[in-house]
């Protein structure tokens, strides 16, 4: 069980690093576009489309880790004030909503990615292949769903791991 959790966390961390690299790439690309346009008089044709794809990839790459770390915005005015038994139900409902949403998203995204791959669709101007980005995003969303389910189903960490007293 703990081994599976370690694997899940390590994969999420690896994806998060890939997302950070995508953001760094996005920054370098946009800056290079400005420098190329004014320094060499040659604008980079692929900047607009590639930066959009990098941004998409960065968002989905960091989704699993942010879900595991539970840093997303919630409206918790009722769930935090609910009596203990009701709170358990509300938390379960919240997790189900997350997993259901990500599952539907991943299913539909996979159809779009598969269609894009079969027709070898390219971006409009720079002719960048779209399928790799869509497949990566879809797999990351699916993995994020797994992370969401794991957070609900996994046994609570030992007391010292939660910062409590032994």
């Amino acid at each position, binding site marked *: 069980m703990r081994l599976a959790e370690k694997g899940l966390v390590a994969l999420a961390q690896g994806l998060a690093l890939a997302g950070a690299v995508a953001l760094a790439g*996005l*920054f370098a690309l946009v800056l290079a576009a400005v420098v190329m346009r004014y320094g060499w008089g040659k604008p980079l044709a692929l900047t607009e489309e590639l930066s959009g794809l990098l941004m998409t990839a960065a968002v989905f790459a960091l989704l699993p880790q942010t879900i595991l770390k539970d840093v997303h*915005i919630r*409206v918790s005015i009722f769930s935090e004030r609910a009596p203990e038994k009701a709170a358990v139900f509300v938390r379960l*409902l919240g997790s189900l909503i997350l997993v259901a*949403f990500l599952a539907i998203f991943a299913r539909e995204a996979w159809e779009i990615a598969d269609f894009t791959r079969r027709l070898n669709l390219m971006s409009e101007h720079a002719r960048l292949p779209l399928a790799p980005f869509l497949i990566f995003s879809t797999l990351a969303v699916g993995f994020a769903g797994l992370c969401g389910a794991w957070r609900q189903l996994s046994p609570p960490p030992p007391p010292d791991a939660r910062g409590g007293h032994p």
Partner: protein
Amino acid sequence: MIWSALGGLLGVTVLSGAMLGAALGLSGFAILHVFGGGATRLGVQAVFNVLGEFTLTAIPLFILLGDVLVASGLASGVYRALSPLFARLAGGLLHTNIAVCTVFGAVSGSSMSVSAAVGSVAYPELTRRGYRRARVVGSLAGGGTLGLLIPPSLSLLIYGALTDTSIGKLFLAGVVPGLMMALLFMIYIEVSVRRETSAVPTEPRLPWGETLLALRDVWPILFLILAVLGSLFAGIATPTESAAVGVAAAVMLGFTIGDLTPRKLLETFLSSARTFTVVAFVFLGAVILAQSISLLQLPQKLLAEVAGAGLSPYLMLGVVILIYLLLGMIFDGLSMMVMTLPVVFPLLTGLGFDPIWLGVVVTIMIEVGMLTPPVGMNLFVLVGLTNREVTLGEAAVGALPYWILLLVGLLLLTIAPGIATWLPALSFA
């Protein structure tokens, strides 16, 4: 039927405490499935289309810019430089909070980033000097909202991208209202502190020579403002490019005169990407919901009903503002905007309101939402920053005068729309 289904779904999913993006997105999927003939794929397609927009790539870059400023210690340098000047006023360093938020607003597009950046420097310093905690938090929460109004602004950027309105004009439209709000905040601080002198300690006054000399340390932020807004308004760079130019300038300053190290920079990329993902997840859910609202032609139906009801434009504006006030209690600003714009934009521009002016009005309403409990994001950020020395309730009470002043600003803007439209009209004439 559709309205009650929408309200019921949102009520259950959002109030369950589920992650907001998932709650909004699942509601959108359900509407698309039941009322849209199973067209859930359209929601996902809309997400990929919107996330691929070049204009929106400015968002992570502006977040990165704010994070680099904090990581490099440039934020604290600017605060120290401006403090002696405002220490001469009765409100003391509370004025500095507003002034630094205004200056930071000109390089950061996010209200929360400004609150966090200035708050992390100002809160420990001001409480150590004996300022009342709730007053400090209130001024930081209020001042932080200026980050969203003074260009570059993520809110105006998203508004422009979603409504096909000129982002350059929108940014210019935010300048005067932003400065007006800063002035209103400072007037309030001065008047209230003069009435209740025990609220703030008396600051030692430095001679004018030393005060002016300290101001020289403001130059890094002025350089950044020039890099970001200068490149944008001179027409040299697009909003995304100006953000990248700003990040490059901030990194350069951070390495040369700040505390930035390669390790800190790498950590900043990771933390900025994480922050952006949190923002983007809400955005993603709101886009799916907005897609379902648009597909079912709900805006058009609402427009037809409003036209039939014969409400005057200003009464309709009042109704919209009231709805934003209520939504601001529950939703964060970004999702509120993405969800409502498909209805509000055609509704109010159809009634004759200027789209540029409306962008500023919507941004102010989002700022109001940032200070409205229980989901006031600026309050959350600052309460977290104080390690809960200040409760959410105390923070909300401290921010209440700024909340009221934002509504006063909105009233002024409605009476005199030129406050927002004058500068873009002048520049684009």
